[in-house]
């Protein structure tokens, strides 16, 4: 399978510091990759290279046939790689939900009647179709983020990059957004790159990339990562509660399969004991 995004040996010089030091990565169709790391590890910088907001000082970022460093290609890159940011308010630009979701297609010069279809479809995917005439300030954080996601979906991207999308949301909002992300990955086979601090979100991913000091330290599946408790500590991360419980029980001598979900752990416990 051909990767949609290929990051090859990318360096990013930021003044005196090297924010990224030789990062290589591939994102495939249907992928669900979580990117974690302490503040300053380079994960946000990496995210911004994926849609050409930042350009490498060395190395290349290729999205299908386009390179981010080619000025003529940059708009094609951004139509293929959609990005959602942390602050729900500072992404919504129009006075109503539907106008905001239309913003992307409008920029792409999509004909008027097709924009209508795309807007409705995108809002349906994020369960916000009923709210299409509302104003942004009337929405909750979770609703705003879902509208932001719809705004990107309306451009028909192949990859959705989300930079800490739930950091400013309450648990209800976070749940809504994560449900949408999962839904998009499973039903639409949308490739997802999720930058996050919340370890429970990592559990949803197929692959996790842990960064530190501008480098990729680990690339594996979530279970493999959280079994290595010392590494997790070193990287400045946390182990999600249920998994940590499993780790501790295994240490005490109980046999139990690793699990992220409470019920899964309980089932595993009952099975082997």
């Amino acid at each position, binding site marked *: 399978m051909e990767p949609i995004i290929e990051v090859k040996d990318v360096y990013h010089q930021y003044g005196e510091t090297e924010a990224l030091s030789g990062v290589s990565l591939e994102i495939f169709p249907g992928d669900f990759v979580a990117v974690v790391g302490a503040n300053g590890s380079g994960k946000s910088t990496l995210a911004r290279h994926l*849609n050409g*907001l930042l350009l490498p000082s060395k190395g290349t970022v290729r999205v299908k046939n386009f390179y981010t460093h080619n000025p003529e290609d940059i*708009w094609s890159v*951004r*139509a293929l790689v*959609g*990005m959602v*940011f942390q*602050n729900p*308010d*500072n*992404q*919504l*630009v*129009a*006075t*109503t939900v*539907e*106008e905001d979701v*239309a*913003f*992307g*297609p*409008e*920029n*792409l*010069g*999509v*004909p*008027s009647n097709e*924009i*209508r279809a795309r*807007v409705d479809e995108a809002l349906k995917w994020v369960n916000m179709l009923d709210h299409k005439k509302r*104003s*942004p*300030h*009337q929405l909750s954080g979770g609703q705003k983020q879902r509208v*932001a996601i719809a*705004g*990107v979906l309306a*451009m028909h991207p192949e990859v959705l990059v989300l930079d800490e999308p739930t950091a400013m949301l309450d648990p209800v909002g976070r749940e809504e957004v994560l449900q949408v992300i999962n839904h998009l990955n499973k039903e639409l086979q949308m490739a997802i790159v999720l930058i996050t601090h919340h370890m429970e979100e990592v559990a949803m991913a197929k692959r996790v990339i842990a960064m530190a000091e501008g480098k990729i330290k680990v690339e594996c599946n979530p279970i493999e990562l959280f079994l290595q408790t010392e590494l997790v500590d070193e990287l400045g991360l946390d182990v999600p509660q249920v998994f940590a419980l499993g780790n501790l029980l295994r240490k005490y001598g109980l046999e139990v399969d690793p699990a992220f979900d409470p019920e899964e752990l309980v089932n595993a416990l009952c099975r082997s004991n």
Partner: protein
Amino acid sequence: MAFDITLGQYIPGDSFVHNLDPRTKLIIAIALIVVLFLVNTFVGYFWIALFLLLATINGSISARSVVRSIKPLTFILLLTVILNILFTEGDILFQLGFIRITEQGVFRGLLLGLRLILLILSTTIMTLTTSPLAITDALENLLGPLKKIKFPVHELSMMLTIALRFIPTLLEETDKIMKAQMARGADFESGNLLKRAQNMVPLLVPLFVSAFRRADDLAVAMESRCYRGGEGRTRLNELKYGKADYLTLAVVLPVLALVVYLF
């Protein structure tokens, strides 16, 4: 803490007036304003008032909304009327020491007062029946020809839309910051004008900082959605003139011209 601030004064509806193209309404509003300055008789104003009354009834605009829109300008209204009554030369009706009230003065005062009210009404009816977004779309469209002389029509329109979008957000933010600073002992209420201006610094600086950060974030988000200026942009809701619009313009504009001519 949720408090709903309706944008502008717009109240959605389905009347003839509501459904007119916003450009039609904007053109008529501007025409009305021009006419109101050209006409100087009560009779002329009577006809204009009648026209506005028709529009009000059709748009299901409540008397309360009308009164509410005039309220903020009551002071200027009264000032205009009183100043004109007191300081116009002419045939004296009443005199008490310094104060001289002339016939012409009363006439002028009332006329100008009425003009002000009708001016407010003309624009209010438009903003009550047209969403802010539609108005900016109309402006962008009507000013379109100016693009030929490199006038940044699209950019201004975008700025206006974004500003409108963020007004409620900014109000909420102001409230939050005020509370946070009050919790540290800031005092926004007491003191003379100068002191109070000084005390605003803990409110204004964070608001400005936040505004800059917001502008930055927004620019990045817009670029990520392929925004690159007005070239080649299409619109979700294309403005289209309908029969109602042609009819309205064809009837109203000549009638207004007639009023100017006759009165």
